[in-house]
């Protein structure tokens, strides 16, 4: 064993010595043979000839000796590698096209794979993540506590609602994001603080101590990463809150981003006791031996009991348990899977192209193969050599693909931060390298093997006689390449149709009238501190004063509303219509309720369909008025005149109604997303509101000649802030955004899907074009004498052009036809991503088909034109 190994190692590492020795040994033999023959009286020439015959192919002999030495595999590999690199350097065009093709395919795949890996596949960053669940419907603190008391299947549970708190005491008043929680939420998620402790149950009570747990980033940015931060305090909403704990850097809430955690009971005692205030997202942990179904049965039992006990608020409030991971990725999952499918198709096209390129090359090098085979190289050696070459190419492709993926994922993250929240860019970890390595190696071997086997099959002697064409191998390769090109077109068409549908859907979505004119409007969010503005009159005074000041600024129109369009953050109320039969409690219709002040409809340019908007006279101590949306009229006053009718929020049986008279109807406005159906909504003046807890407002400020993103808008913002702080310098101005930005944020997900699918379809089309171009160019070069004969016999350029284009068109048409069938079958999986477009939309199918056919013809035109320039004299000599 040992000698064997030493022997092999010597052969490997002292290769040159060993080779030289082998040469010398064989030469000695050869010379002795000649000596022997000449001394026996044979002439010198004859002796040399005989010795040659005896020794046989020296190369083959050496090869067999190397084999016998047992280092063949590694040595061959190294030699093949060197040879491959030399060959690739000699044909840089092919190398570049092949490497780029694969880099695109592998890069796109890796980028999407890394997104899927981190978003869909990797577990949530909490201990025992499989046992974490959430209830689809939000809940109130009271109900959470009842569920916690009664459940037999849920180990822990807690709720959170996100609010903003005013931080004063810094350079200017700011808002921080605060998670109002109950003691138990952070324990349920199972993460311990990095410093200090969490809020304990005995502190989570009405009048409890003003304590807070802070997030790591807040600790770093606001508190200078002070290691002795525990015990320090900040003024929030006018109270001093003491830091009692700091969360670790890796921690984040499952859905929302926050800066700090405070007890709901301490920070918002006005809302905490109300059972009907369903505003907390709840997270629960299943007992270890409990299934989701058991827990759901348990929870439904509790929900039924709550419904019986508190029919007014819990009567119509089902509770559905969902595994947390599913809940978080549910929205983006179909889109990501479709993108992964798309990128898989792109990869297939890239591979088809790659193997097509190699096939053409293998045929071009057929004579070289034949020569080497006749010099004694075995078929398996020739195949190994070819595959080594394709593996070298595929690894180069993989390396560039990795770079592309890195760049691509940066792009992905910049496109849609919200839905890819859990995706923090590509992780250069072992998994990723393993993925790239495996995909490159497999591609190189599988797609290199097919042309190599094809090119080395068949009889050596036949091939020498008729190099490169006419034989069965040539035919096989031609059919094979045709199939490849046609499949590329089929796949590309499927992608194009998919992208076309997305683009059409997106265009539809963008052309949806939001109901107002967003351009030239800046928006800002204000929240009045409870300490000085807990009653409506104080709030109204502030609001009126602020609008008066803003409207005095030159060229500026300002108004305010509780919640902005596209903010997706409006309040619904149940409501009643005067004079209609009473509806049972809990089953009244729901309407979006918005409070406004100033000429809101004028500033936003929301058309008034009938009646009037609000005026200065619609104020406190005046008749209560409301303006409603067209959809409300359609649904509740069909065929009636709503003007003059009276509506009010649904009230408890013993509570008197305060009817508001409808004085106007306005166009529907999208308050959620553009693709939602129109909602019934009603507007009422802030000054006539009776909900003093609505202390927030969004300013809408129109300056008609405002250029977006320019210094104009920052000047305007500065002016607004100045006016706010002139009235009260403790009020933060936050969420400063133009209305256009709000709109584009709301379109982000659709834009993301459309851009990526469009990009992949574009890639697919490009690759298919390269594929058909390569095939046709090769075909033309193969048929040069045939074309030459045609021309010599008087064929016109037009005829030659038609001949070649017809050839290419046939290929493309077969592919496109198959693609149409495939697309019709496949695009229905996209239905959930499309807005008002059928997955089999005929216009999209027709346009994409025409586009692809045009690209195919253009790609064929270049080689076809070259064919028309063939000089018959040269062509006939060409072999």
């Amino acid at each position, binding site marked *: 064993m040992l*000698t*064997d190994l030493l*022997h*092999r190692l010597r052969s490997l590492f002292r290769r040159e010595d060993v080779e030289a*020795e*082998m040469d*010398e*040994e*064989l030469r*000695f*033999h050869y*010379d*002795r*043979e000649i*000596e*022997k023959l000449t001394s026996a009286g044979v002439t010198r020439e004859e002796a040399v000839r005989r010795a040659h015959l*005896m*020794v*046989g192919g020296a190369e*083959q*002999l050496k090869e*067999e*000796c190397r*084999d*016998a*030495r*047992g280092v063949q595999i590694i040595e061959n590999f190294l030699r093949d590698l060197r040879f491959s690199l030399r060959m690739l350097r000699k044909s840089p065009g092919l190398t570049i096209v092949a490497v780029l093709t694969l880099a695109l395919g592998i890069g796109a795949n890796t980028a999407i794979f890394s997104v899927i890996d981190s978003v869909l596949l990797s577990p949530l960053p909490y201990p025992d993540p499989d046992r974490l669940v959430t209830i689809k419907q939000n809940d109130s603190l009271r109900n959470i506590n009842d569920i916690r008391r009664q459940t037999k299947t849920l180990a822990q549970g807690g709720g959170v609602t996100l609010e903003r708190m005013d931080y004063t005491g810094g350079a200017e008043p700011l808002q921080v994001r605060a998670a109002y929680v109950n003691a138990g939420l952070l324990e349920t998620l199972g993460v311990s603080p990095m410093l200090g402790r969490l809020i304990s149950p005995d502190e989570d009570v009405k009048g409890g101590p003003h304590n807070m747990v802070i997030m790591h980033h807040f600790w770093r940015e606001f508190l200078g990463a002070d290691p002795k931060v525990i015990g320090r305090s900040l003024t929030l909403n006018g109270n001093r809150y003491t830091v009692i704990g700091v969360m670790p850097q890796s921690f984040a809430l499952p859905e929302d981003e926050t800066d700090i955690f405070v007890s709901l009971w301490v920070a918002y005692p006005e809302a905490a006791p109300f059972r009907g205030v369903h505003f907390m997202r709840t997270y629960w942990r299943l007992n270890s031996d409990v299934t989701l179904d058991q827990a759901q049965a348990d929870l439904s039992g509790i929900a039924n009991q709550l419904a019986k006990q508190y029919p007014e608020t819990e009567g119509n409030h089902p509770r559905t348990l969902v595994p947390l991971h599913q809940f978080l990725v549910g929205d983006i999952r179909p889109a990501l899977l479709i993108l992964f499918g798309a990128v898989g198709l792109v990869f297939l096209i890239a591979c088809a192209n790659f193997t097509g390129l190699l096939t053409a090359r293998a045929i071009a090098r057929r004579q070289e193969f034949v020569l080497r085979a006749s010099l004694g190289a075995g078929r398996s050696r020739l195949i190994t050599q070819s595959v080594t070459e394709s593996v070298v190419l595929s690894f180069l492709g993989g390396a560039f693909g990795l770079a592309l993926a890195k760049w691509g994922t940066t792009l992905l993250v910049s496109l849609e931060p919200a839905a890819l929240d859990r995706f923090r860019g590509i992780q250069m970890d072992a998994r990723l390298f393993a993925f790239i390595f495996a995909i490159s190696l497999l591609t190189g071997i599988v797609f290199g093997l097919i042309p190599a086997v094809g090119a080395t099959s068949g009889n050596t002697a036949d091939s020498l006689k008729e190099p490169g064409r006419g034989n069965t191998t040539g035919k096989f390769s031609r059919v094979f390449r045709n199939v490849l090109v046609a499949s590329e077109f089929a796949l590309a068409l499927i992608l194009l149709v998919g992208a076309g549908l997305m683009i059409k859907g997106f265009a539809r979505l963008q052309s949806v009238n939001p109901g107002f004119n967003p351009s030239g409007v800046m928006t800002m969010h204000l929240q009045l501190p409870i300490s000085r503005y807990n009653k409506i009159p104080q709030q109204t005074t502030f609001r009126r004063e602020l609008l008066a000041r803003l409207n005095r600024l030159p060229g500026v129109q300002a108004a305010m509303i509780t919640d902005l369009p596209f903010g997706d953050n409006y309040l619904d109320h149940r409501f009643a219509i005067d004079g209609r039969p009473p509806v049972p409690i809990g089953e009244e219709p729901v309407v979006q309720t918005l409070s406004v002040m100033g000429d809101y409809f004028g500033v936003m340019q929301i058309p008034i369909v009938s009646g009037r908007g609000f005026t200065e006279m619609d104020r406190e101590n005046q008749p209560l008025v409301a303006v409603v949306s067209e959809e409300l009229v359609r649904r509740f006053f069909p065929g009636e005149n709503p003007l003059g009718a009276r509506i009010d929020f649904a009230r408890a049986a013993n509570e008197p109604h305060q009817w508001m008279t409808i004085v106007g109807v306005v166009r529907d406005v999208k308050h959620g997303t553009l693709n939602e159906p129109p909602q019934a909504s009603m507007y009422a003046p802030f000054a006539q509101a009776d909900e003093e807890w609505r202390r927030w407002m969004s300013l809408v400020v129109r300056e008609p000649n405002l250029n977006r993103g320019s210094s104009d808008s920052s000047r305007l913002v500065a002016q607004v802030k100045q006016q706010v702080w002139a009235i009260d310098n403790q009020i933060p101005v936050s969420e400063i955004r133009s209305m256009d930005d709000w709109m584009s944020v709301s379109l982000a997900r659709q834009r993301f899907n459309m851009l990526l699918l469009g990009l992949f379809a574009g890639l697919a089309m490009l690759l298919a074009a390269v594929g058909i171009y390569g095939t046709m160019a090769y075909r033309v070069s193969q048929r040069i004498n045939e074309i030459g004969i045609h021309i010599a016999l008087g064929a016109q350029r037009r005829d030659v052009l038609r001949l070649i284009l017809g050839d290419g068109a046939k290929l493309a048409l077969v592919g496109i036809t198959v693609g149409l069938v495939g697309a019709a079958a496949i695009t229905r999986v996209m239905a959930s991503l499309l807005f008002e477009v059928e997955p089999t939309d005929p216009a999209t199918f027709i346009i994409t088909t025409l586009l692809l056919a045009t690209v195919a013809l253009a790609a064929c035109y270049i080689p076809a034109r070259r064919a028309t320039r063939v000089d018959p004299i040269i062509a006939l000599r060409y072999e």
Partner: protein
Amino acid sequence: MPPRIELPQGTLDLLILRCVANEPQHGWAISERLQQISKDVLRVQQGSLYPALHRLERRGWIVAKWGASENNRRAKFYSLTRKGEKQLEAERDAWEALTAAVAQVLRTA
């Protein structure tokens, strides 16, 4: 010319081991010797001889040393190792047993 016989698989190794058993020999001498002794019946092609030599060397049955040939040129001389001696003995016994058995069958069957 007497008819030539294709060597059965494995017998070339045995013959080579036997040729280098008495004294170190180079490749050409081994092939000449095989030819002479077998009266031209066994003619070994270099195509099989040299790979076989390299294979036997790898197995540690023979070792190669460079030395001066009969006409004073550098040549590679192969000689038997201890391991090779044992192998030669074992193979010779096996061969003799085989030929005896085959002969027995041919005679009596």
